[in-house]
């Protein structure tokens, strides 16, 4: 057997998945685990190698489950993870990573020892990620490094983010990094160093070097507009130090579209480039081969520690170091075995990393390069400069990660295959110049300035290439998540190409199946059909976004949520993934109730990511800056339809009535809440009233024009604020349910307590996105069904009421 670790790793993964999908108590697992462990010893003693290996594999499955359950339980029962305090508290602890820099916030990673909350000491331990609001004046964050003991005044952030159906909640990503909670603090002044870390700690030295190098990059790569680091500097920082915090969304998007964003994560490719460069240097200065292996091992480990073992660096370094050790021990080195081992090792360190997208991408790419690259290269014509080799490697890596990219990032890009040909050598040159720059920056600032200029130029060139490539249509696009059977089928037939030669006859069938699955994967030909009328109030935090699926194929999206400062792209990261998870490719009616940021900012990403039929709006506020930004994102020749009071649109058996606002004599140049577009959607016995952000005045106006507008479900006007939901309005609408779309702990203090009391007075059942997550109503015209993303306990008041329906 040439790759025993492949089997051990696969069975360990099976064990972890088992533990993940079927929660089994450790006490049930530990006994069989011991039995199979002993059995393998016995078989080993009896020299029954096959039986021994089988029981070892079973042992590993059981071990994987046990280990996952243990770690999961440990994490879920952590005190910091379960801590619920809403005000500022003092957190005491030690930094376990160097401070990270971002664009809006900087980040600190604190191993918490105790907490002081309202003058009470709590002994709580766990890992805390603190976002610190960036300050131009106070720069004390630069003085902190690993090992320092700090006191941070901060507010805990909710562990779960946006809770929508079939969507991962945010704490899963934190779990992978073993961070128990996130916190926010509004100023670096609220952080104080209590004690410096021990100066004997080597990690601290590395942290100093790291911070020093970062300052060098900051010094030589300044943006001409602001006082901060330029985007070229941010890219160099990502390439050399593995920190991507200061890339703007625009840069990221451009690289992601081009499909070369992965090159910015220090990974196998980088380690390969670094090793290759060092080998060349060692050869030049005539260091014997074996000595250079040993030196390389030390340099790689040093580098991995310097970039603070970002998971991707760790993976690549383990692969490389194990490979070199094998060579040093005069052993055969089988790449499949080495890579399997490195996966095995990482899973032992942290079983959650199996669910890390980066983990999956690295290993799939590495495996498919090993398995397929040489075959693909042999099909390609021989080209100079190793172009065919690079091309073959690029294609084989793409084959391995295509389903994962489509599944997690909803993207299909064939650009990367071509761009890699330019980008990989270019990044190699940039990196080697970067290391030269860092070395020389210690000696002469004049020379390093020249090198920095060259690097800046090269990175600009890289970005320019991406920009041009992105202009080419149809090479990079977004699609809904491919279904699991398609992904499994794809991998099955991909591996089937490796079947031994005697299956020659089956080869044609395998090829046909593989390519048809590939086409399904990259086109997503499944229509999204709904039997009932489905209305989903998406959890977008503070803001509003409502998806309406009509019986049949047609879809409507009312608003897209959004943050006020655009700091987080709700449209890209919450609304679009939710729509994709439903298999939606086209929005037939995109409705913008009014151009306020918490309603319209999220639509910018939606119009880019989906095919849009037509846009509905009442007001086009030509002077409004949010509206102008939205218009800039729209594709050319899109139909924008004006909708005013009195219009009725039939979509199959569903009736859409526009209740507000009336036709304007002069189109306003700005929009206010009372001009929100109000719609009533009627299907059989049930109607839904979608009210935007209207207040008393608009409510009164609606009541003036419409007599019978009883609705089963009312979307609480203006997030349940004090100035809406008048008594008279509620009396006329007589809803059974009211849905309030609000963010947890929002700064407007909505919904208002008085309004909630008013809803209760009229016996209206309250559903809120901050408590229930996404809320889905489904009706065939007669029966109304309700589903929520967050399930409460049995004791919960809502469940008891809802249980009746």
């Amino acid at each position, binding site marked *: 057997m040439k*790759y*025993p670790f492949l089997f051990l790793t696969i069975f360990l993964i099976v064990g972890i998945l088992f533990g993940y999908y079927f929660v089994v108590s450790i006490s049930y697992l530990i006994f069989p685990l011991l039995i199979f462990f002993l059995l393998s010893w016995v078989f080993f003693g009896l020299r029954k190698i096959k039986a021994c290996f089988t029981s070892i594999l079973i042992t590993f499955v059981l071990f994987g489950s046990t280990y996952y359950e243990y770690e999961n339980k440990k994490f879920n029962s952590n005190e910091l993870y379960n801590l619920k305090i809403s005000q500022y508290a003092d957190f005491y602890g030690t930094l376990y990573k160097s401070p990270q820099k971002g664009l809006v916030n900087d980040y600190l990673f604190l191993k918490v020892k105790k907490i002081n909350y309202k003058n009470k000491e709590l002994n709580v331990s766990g890992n805390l990620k603190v976002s610190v609001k960036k300050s131009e004046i106070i720069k004390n964050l630069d003085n902190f490094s690993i090992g320092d003991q700090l006191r941070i005044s901060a507010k805990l952030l909710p562990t779960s983010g946006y809770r929508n159906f079939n969507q991962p909640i945010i704490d899963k990503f934190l779990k992978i990094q073993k961070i128990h909670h996130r916190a926010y603090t509004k100023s670096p002044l609220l952080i104080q160093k209590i004690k410096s870390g021990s100066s004997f700690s080597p990690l601290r030295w590395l942290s100093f070097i790291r911070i020093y190098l970062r300052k060098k990059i900051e010094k030589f790569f300044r943006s001409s507009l602001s006082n901060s680091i330029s985007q070229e500097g941010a890219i160099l920082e990502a390439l050399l130090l593995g920190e991507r915090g200061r890339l703007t969304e625009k840069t990221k998007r451009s690289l992601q579209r081009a499909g070369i964003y992965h090159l910015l994560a220090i990974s196998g490719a980088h380690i390969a480039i670094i090793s290759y460069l060092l080998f060349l240097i060692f050869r030049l200065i005539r260091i014997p*081969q074996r000595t250079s292996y040993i030196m390389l091992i030390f340099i790689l480990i040093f580098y991995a520690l310097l970039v603070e073992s970002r998971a991707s660096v760790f993976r690549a370094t383990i692969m490389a170091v194990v490979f070199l050790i094998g060579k040093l*021990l*005069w*052993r*055969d080195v*089988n790449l499949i075995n080495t890579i399997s081992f490195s996966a095995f090792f990482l899973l032992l360190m942290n079983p959650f990393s199996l669910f890390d997208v980066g983990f999956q991408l690295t290993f799939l790419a590495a495996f498919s390069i090993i398995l397929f690259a040489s075959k693909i290269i042999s099909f390609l014509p021989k080209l100079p400069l190793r172009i065919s080799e690079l091309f073959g490697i690029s294609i084989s890596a793409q084959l391995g990660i295509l389903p994962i990219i489509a599944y997690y990032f909803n993207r299909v890009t064939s650009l990367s295959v071509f761009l890699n040909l330019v980008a990989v050598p270019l990044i190699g040159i940039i990196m080697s110049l970067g290391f030269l720059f860092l070395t020389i920056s210690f000696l002469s600032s004049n020379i390093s300035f020249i090198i920095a200029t060259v690097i800046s130029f090269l990175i600009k060139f890289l970005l320019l290439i991406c920009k041009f490539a992105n202009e080419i249509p149809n090479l990079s696009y977004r699609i809904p998540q491919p279904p699991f059977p398609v992904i499994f089928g794809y991998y099955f037939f991909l591996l089937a190409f490796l079947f031994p030669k005697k299956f020659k006859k089956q080869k044609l069938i395998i090829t046909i199946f593989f390519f048809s699955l590939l086409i399904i994967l990259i086109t997503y030909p499944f229509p999204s059909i709904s039997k009932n009328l489905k209305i989903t109030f998406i959890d977008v935090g503070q803001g509003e976004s409502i998806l309406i699926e009509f019986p049949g194929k047609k879809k409507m999206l009312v608003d897209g949520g959004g943050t006020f400062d655009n700091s987080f792209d709700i449209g890209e990261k919450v609304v679009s993934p939710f729509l994709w998870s439903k298999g939606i490719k086209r929005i037939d009616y995109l409705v913008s109730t009014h151009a306020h940021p918490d309603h319209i900012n999220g639509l910018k990403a939606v119009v880019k990511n989906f095919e849009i039929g037509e846009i509905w709006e009442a007001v086009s506020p030509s002077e409004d800056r949010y509206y102008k930004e939205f218009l800039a994102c729209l594709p050319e020749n899109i139909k924008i339809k004006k909708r005013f009071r009195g219009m009725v649109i039939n979509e199959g058996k569903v009736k859409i009535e526009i209740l507000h606002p009336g036709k304007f004599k002069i189109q306003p140049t700005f929009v206010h809440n009372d001009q929100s577009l109000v719609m009533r959607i009627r299907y059989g016995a049930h109607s839904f009233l979608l009210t935007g952000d209207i207040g008393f005045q608009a409510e009164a106006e609606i009541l003036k024009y419409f007599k019978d507008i009883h609705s089963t479900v009312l979307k609480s006007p203006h997030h349940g604020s004090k100035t809406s939901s008048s008594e008279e309005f509620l009396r006329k609408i007589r809803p059974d349910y009211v849905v309030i779309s609000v963010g947890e702990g929002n700064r407007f203090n909505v919904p208002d307590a008085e309004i909630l009391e008013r809803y209760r007075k009229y016996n209206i059942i309250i559903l809120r996105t901050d408590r229930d997550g996404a809320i889905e109503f489904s009706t065939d015209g007669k029966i109304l069904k309700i589903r929520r993303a967050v399930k409460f306990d049995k004791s919960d008041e809502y469940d008891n009421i809802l249980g009746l329906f």
Partner: protein
Amino acid sequence: MNNSLKNVINLIEVLLFPSYCEICSSFLESFEEKVICNECWEKIIPYRGQICLKCGKAIKSSFYQPHYCQHCLTNVPTFSLHRSFGKYEGVLKDIILLFKFKRKRVLGKKLGYLAYETLKANPIFLKSEVIIPVPLYPKREKERGFNQCEIIAIELEKLTNIRFLKNVLIKIKDTPPQSVLDFKKRKNNVKGAFYVKNSLHIYKKNVLLIDDVYTSGSTIMECSKILKKAGAKEIFVLTLAQTV
């Protein structure tokens, strides 16, 4: 305890780097087996037939008395004695090729031990006071990363306590390898290729000259001649293998 620790290391190494013998492709079970399995090593046996008293060449003759070969009788070699471990064929040949051309330096230890066995079998070798390997041209040595004869010399030094001298005999001409030339050209090829740098070290001393393979003997002859000129007393030659 020590033993079980060794077992664990062995297990890890075998799992991490499952390796196969370069010659017979059988699985290497122990981490002490590098590149070549123990069974293959055991297949190498010293030549036990009748040989020339001087140069060690196998001779077919009806005489039962040990005697010189035809070649040694006509042109008397400059060295006193040459012995090889075995014939340059089969497993021994494969191993020497792996050692020299596939840069499997790790094989040097066991090959050195083979040389030592030959040395023990001919006690006259113990008269030598210094060990000198046949040198490589510096550029060739850089390419290969090591001088195969030197590795064996170092091993012999460890086993016998005879001093190994580095950089006494050096190569000053980058000649094409002997193996690509026919017998007649070999003699001229190595002519004037060697030089003795620190003759004081070998002055009036018995020298043990080490080479990997003895074919035509031209290299050995040339080295012996030069060493003799520099003042060496007697020259004994030890090689790993000799062509038939």
